């Protein structure tokens, strides 16, 4: 099945609901090593993106995704807000001419997210960030074929979970967590958790609609 504008709006809506639910959880997680505002940022940006998309008359799906990114950049321009915004903007650019996302296009979508994060965050794998989930996830999809979004995202969610788990052993290089040095080991990264939640939520969307 191909994902059109209305389905993508639906995905943004479940992301809005999920990140609203996870607000306190992410605040607590971020308070261990960060400023404690991650839950606020994430609930704000997905609420803004979903609300704006709902009223949008945009017919290009790529442009809708890109505009969602721009909305996020305004809604909460903190580090993670800006990174997620850049990820969506680049994912939108990659899919610019498309009116729908085919199964094989999800690799392009996550590839775009990856390039947006690299460009803005100047990070690489192993630095205990959102990139440690988004980058391997994008690469994972490159040589795979799936027969449904449901199987794609189920597979991707379990792979993302393993990537998230690996951030436990990493030492933070960015943001406030970098102040902790060696002590930042032992916890999964809060930003990487956001990437995992994003994938898991999309998976549940397809699980529910399949």
């Amino acid at each position, binding site marked *: 099945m191909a994902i059109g504008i209305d389905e993508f709006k639906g995905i943004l809506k479940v992301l809005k609901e999920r990140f609203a639910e996870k607000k306190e959880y992410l605040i607590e997680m971020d308070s261990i090593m960060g400023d404690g*505002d991650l839950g606020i940022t994430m609930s704000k940006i997905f609420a803004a993106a979903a609300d704006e998309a709902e009223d949008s008359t945009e017919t290009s799906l790529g442009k809708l995704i890109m505009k969602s990114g721009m909305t996020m*950049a305004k809604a*909460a*321009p903190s580090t993670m807000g*800006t990174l997620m915004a850049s990820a969506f903007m680049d994912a939108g650019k990659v899919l610019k001419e498309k009116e729908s996302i085919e199964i094989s296009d999800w690799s392009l979508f996550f590839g775009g997210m990856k390039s947006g994060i690299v460009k*803005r965050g100047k990070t690489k794998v192993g630095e205990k960030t959102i990139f440690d989930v988004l980058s391997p996830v994008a690469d994972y999809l490159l040589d795979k074929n799936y027969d449904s979004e449901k199987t794609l995202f189920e597979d991707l969610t379990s792979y993302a979970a393993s990537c998230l788990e690996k951030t436990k052993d990493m030492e933070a290089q960015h943001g*406030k967590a970098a102040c902790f040095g060696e002590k930042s080991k032992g916890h999964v990264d809060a930003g990487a958790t956001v990437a995992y939640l994003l994938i898991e939520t999309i998976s549940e969307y397809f699980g529910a609609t399949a």
Partner: protein
Amino acid sequence: MKKILNNPKEFALDTLKGIYAAHPQDLTFVEDDLHCLIKKDLVKGKVGIVTGGGSGHLPLFLGYVGDGLLDGCAVGDVFQSPSSEQILNVTKAVEQGQGVLYLYGNYSGDIMNFEMATEMAEMDDIRTEHLVCGEDVASSKKGEEHKRRGVAGIFFVYKCAGAKADELASLDEVKRIGEKAAANVRTMGFALSPCIIPEVGKPSFTLADDEMEIGMGIHGEPGINRTKLLTAKELVQILMEKIIEDLPYNKGDEVCVLLNGLGSTPKEELYIMYKETAEILEMKGIKVFHAFIGEIATSMEMAGGSISLLKLDDELKKLIKKPCYTPFYCQKEL
């Protein structure tokens, strides 16, 4: 949480409304966005200096917008970067044909948004340069100074760059001076109690009644040592030792000293600390040109503070001496 506010979500916005109501002769905003704050009387032909950062640090950042200091500030929500669009709006408003210097602290959200603003400003043919300040000795070790976070010492960079821009110097010159000031500042902080982000509603860390943390940042970034409460003398000795050896500041140097309170520490305690600071400097043969004591960069109701030193040369000293005025800070000719 015990704070005076109407709605936690509107904390930054209501603060800004109060500021514009109180200082209509000095400050205004552009593009119908209270977060885009600029100085009212811009000087023709002068390099614009724009700063930005999260709310919750007054007088940092917007409090240094005024004569002889900065021209504009993009104001974020509490501890959050302003958006690139807000930075761009401020940039366009203060640009006077000589380009704009972006002068801000070393925080990833701010860096990303100022960089995005530069990309957008280029579309409008506005030249921007970046100066990222990070002088908190405790936030990263020697050899990794580029990772250090910007705290109260950024005031000295504002002061020197602002005074230089007032001489109608070029963008490159203003940047050079700012870099020189930044290279000569070191800060160490400490905290006795946490702060609360209004929207979060609870402290992001806890300290026992008899504990303090040395090296704490202005968002509660962890320090390098948690310890039982020290005397002023013991505390200042620890802070000064780290600061002095880091640059290092040597016998015969002349410095400015900045004793900054984080929000809940009374000035009396800062003066007790200054007495100890001055004694150490005298013992080391380091001369104090001027002491700045008060709240320069706060973290809402956090108790604690920081000491910063700026090593002077003739050029920086001349710029520090210049008078300046903002609703939050004014200084006569020194």
